[in-house]
């Protein structure tokens, strides 16, 4: 209806602001992607000389850059485990929060408090707790828990938003037709809220995969990738650092693409089905 209206002048001002912001957001990232293809004699800044894959090879080849391969081998399984646990726990809790139960407010605000808890403080607490119990800190135990305390509030908030829009009539219809609680959950509720579950997975995976402050004191003797990168920023002064940045960012982008792509695909299919 207002398709033919002239755009106000503020549109052009704000469109410029938005464009500049996007350049500000992605420009630096793009510059290190380019610099990671620096030749063997190239430096940390432009110009790009003799471009190639030299520093990507150096990343996994030399001992000088630390145990990058090993760090990948720990960070990926950790992120996947955190993702699965985040989905299961958030969906279950999201379902619980549809009704008021004793302690629901306390639990909800504790989860929110987790969101504003400084990561370093949590890191100290978990380290001391493990020492207190006589347990060693490991990436698969203490860091796993530390990451969950960061991903779960996001998971819970997404499930809150998604489940509040779920019409209870669907479940009632399923019960009326004789479905059990489990059947209703797996065959009615989960398929409907699937896009939300994918979003929770995306948060679970990427937040764990990139987490630094909460990992700082909780990973134990074997580093995860963000800690490896942090150490490299002080010790490695070659474009290998940029190559590592490029590799990790590509993995993040793959996860984001996969998640957003499948959400988009599901929504698209739903729209098409509704049309007849």
């Amino acid at each position, binding site marked *: 209806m*207002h398709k033919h209206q002239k755009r*106000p002048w503020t*549109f052009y001002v*704000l*469109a410029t602001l*938005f464009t500049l912001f996007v350049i500000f957001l*992605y*420009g*630096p*990232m793009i*510059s*290190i992607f380019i610099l990671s293809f620096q030749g063997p004699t190239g430096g940390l*800044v*432009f110009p790009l000389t003799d471009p190639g894959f030299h520093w990507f090879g150096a990343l996994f080849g030399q001992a000088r850059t630390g145990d990058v391969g090993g760090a990948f081998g720990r960070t990926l399984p950790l992120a996947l485990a955190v993702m699965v646990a985040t989905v*299961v*726990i958030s969906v*279950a*809790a999201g*379902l*619980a929060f549809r009704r008021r*139960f*004793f302690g*629901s407010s306390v639990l*909800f605000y*504790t*989860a*929110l408090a987790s*969101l*504003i*808890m*400084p*990561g*370093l*403080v*949590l890191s*100290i*607490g*978990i380290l*001391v*707790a493990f020492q*207190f119990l006589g347990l060693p800190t490991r990436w698969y135990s203490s860091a796993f*828990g530390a990451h969950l*305390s960061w991903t779960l509030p996001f998971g*819970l*908030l997404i499930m809150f938003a998604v489940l*509040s829009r779920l019409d209870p009539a669907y479940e009632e219809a399923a019960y009326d037709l004789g479905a059990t609680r489990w059947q209703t959950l797996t065959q009615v509720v989960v398929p409907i809220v699937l896009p939300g579950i994918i979003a929770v997975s*995306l948060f679970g995976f*990427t937040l764990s995969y*990139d987490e630094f*402050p909460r990992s700082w004191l909780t990973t134990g003797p074997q580093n995860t990738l963000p800690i490896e990168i942090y150490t490299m920023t002080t010790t490695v002064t070659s474009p290998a*650092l*940029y190559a590592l*940045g490029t590799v*990790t*960012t590509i993995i*993040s*982008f793959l*996860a*984001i693409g996969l998640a*957003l792509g499948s959400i988009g695909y599901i929504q698209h299919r739903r729209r098409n089905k509704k049309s007849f």
Partner: protein
Amino acid sequence: MKSRNLIPYLQAAPLAIVLFLFLAAPLALVLVVSVFRNKLFVGLVPAFTFENYFSILTNAVNYQLYLSTLKFTVIVLAVTMVLGFWIAYFLVFHVRSLLIAIGLFLVCTVPFWTSNIIRMISWKPLLGREGLVNTALINSGVIDQPILWLLFSDFTVVLSYVHLFTLFMIVPIFNSMARIDKSLVEAAVDAGASRWKVIWNVIVPLCKTGIGLGSVFVVTLVMSDFFVVAVMSGGLSGSVSSGVFFDLGILNYPRAAANSIVLLAIVVLIAAGILRVVDVRKELTG
């Protein structure tokens, strides 16, 4: 019938257990350790002393750290709030196609799912002495000496914070703004309100919750940061958390714990102050 009433408890139990084990209990231990004594070569010595807090409150360096953190927080909050508001406003009220608006919104949020450390480091080849910005400015004749404060200064720290945290402002403001009934805006325009009056008297009050939530995020993120300030100031600036980080480096866990408690108390007070004005639960479900 009785067993059905237990179901919400079973569903919420895993969350409660994780939050107890990895949030509440560790936090309680930090509080306990903060009154312990630190003994050289021995480590933690159980005690009940306030000397760690005393050492923090009487140390002039700590006040400087708090002041510096406060300065960064205020500047970053102001910049991200203005940027976040106008970007959300652009997406909600100026982009006509909903699909394009969602697409552009995602463009703003994608960096959230990538590594903060990498995003921070990626400023280095641009801002250094021989970086892209200095080279371009020298080549074009604007300056003849490289600008040194572009990298490793308070400027760089603020730039990195704005770069990393603006989306925490955009998302909640966008969320509240998208729910504003467009007919309210039309009614205000029909009643003769100017564009600015509509923004100030209709739109801003209706996204108060979003602005509040975004502010809580930004304040907490800046106050609990230690690595951006360490890396991007080149060691010239510090924050409260870098004080904690330093104590951990010299293995003084009790003072690190006491420092953490002070930091946490301040963060919680600010967050509670902001959240008093906004109802989070309503915002999420309503």
